[in-house]
């Protein structure tokens, strides 16, 4: 099962990797329980930075498309097919858009929304650090 990335594409490399792996899961070219190459192997084959593949794997693991089993390696998650259909990014964008639309309807300016958004994000970070 081959994956292909385009280093000149505007889409970030880690996103291309995620899309390719999710696509392979969706088309059942890789199935639950199938082993995946190590970060180093995939990065070496694609001639990209290890961190790029690590980031893609991290996000795929968060979305429960793949799972890491310690020293045994990385495998396709048992629920990968259902989970790979969920696009968390699209959900975030959809909900944010709805929130922004609501705030604009309430009369808030874009500048106020931007500042408030920044404050909320910073507060969240601060609260996490304190915790």
């Amino acid at each position, binding site marked *: 099962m081959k994956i292909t990335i385009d280093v000149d594409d505007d889409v970030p490399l880690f996103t291309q990797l995620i899309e390719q792996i999710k696509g392979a899961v969706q088309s059942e070219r890789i199935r639950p329980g199938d082993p995946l*190459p190590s970060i180093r192997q995939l990065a070496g*084959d694609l001639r990209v930075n290890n961190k790029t593949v690590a980031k893609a794997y991290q996000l795929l693991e968060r979305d429960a498309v793949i799972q890491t089993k310690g020293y045994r390696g990385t495998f396709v998650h048992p629920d990968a097919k259902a989970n790979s259909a969920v696009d968390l990014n699209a959900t975030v964008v959809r909900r944010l858009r709805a929130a922004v639309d609501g705030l604009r309807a309430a009369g808030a300016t874009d500048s106020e929304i931007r500042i408030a958004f920044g404050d909320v994000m910073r507060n969240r970070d601060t609260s996490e650090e304190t915790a």
Partner: protein
Amino acid sequence: MTDAWLRTVIQLVFLSQVLLISYVLPRQVLARMRRIVSSYPPATHPRLYPVSLDRVAAAQRTYDRLNRAALAVGLGVAVTDRLWPNGGWVDWDNELLLIGFLLLQLAPLLVARRAGFAYFNLQRRTDPRTTRSADLRPRRLLDHVSPALLVLAGFVYAAFVLQVLLVGRHDYPWFGGNLNIVFMTGMNLFLAGVVLFALRGKRKDPYQDPADRERLMGIAVRNAVWTSIIATGFVALQIGLGALDLASLKPIALSLYFQVLALLSFRGFDIEQVNFEVYREDPVPA
């Protein structure tokens, strides 16, 4: 065996080392390179040549000259010892002589390896394609080497450790003791690193057919395991010869060991099996 006979055998084995590593094997390598250039020239396979043919020929000449220099030195040593055996010019009991000469013989190979890395680097830099592909299948050690061979390597290492511990009970002045275990463990760890690099290292040739890459990887992995078995076995043999008071045979064993390792490391795969279509401007899809 008399001393004169023993010296003759040592000279013959040394001569065979000189000829094999500095003449026979390099001739084969150069013949292979020339066959590639003539069968797959830049006009039809431009991706194979990130540099001009003149530079390729210059690199071949450097490799050839270095080997000829090592050959001349080796023949000089062999002839000197044959003509003046009692002149004290050549001391076969001194292992440094054989090891030093081997390093001289390996110099052309190291230069060629370095040039090879630079060549692949240029191939990558001049690769105009923006798409890159990879297989979503993990590469594992057992894909390339049989479990029996790995068990054999482990068994030879365990037997070597046992031998060192047993010989260590006697008070031999020449015996290095547990340092032998440390040294061989270090060497085997190095070979494990070579295996890891072969399996997970960066792709060197950007155009190489995946099947060719797999085959080369298999050869590198199997060579590393065989090197571990042969090297560990050789050190065990050296210790055995010392314990049996046969130290005079050590130069023969050392030279034969170098020749076996050379044969092993030069064992590449047949270029007839290589898919050279990938080096065309518009490669034919597999």
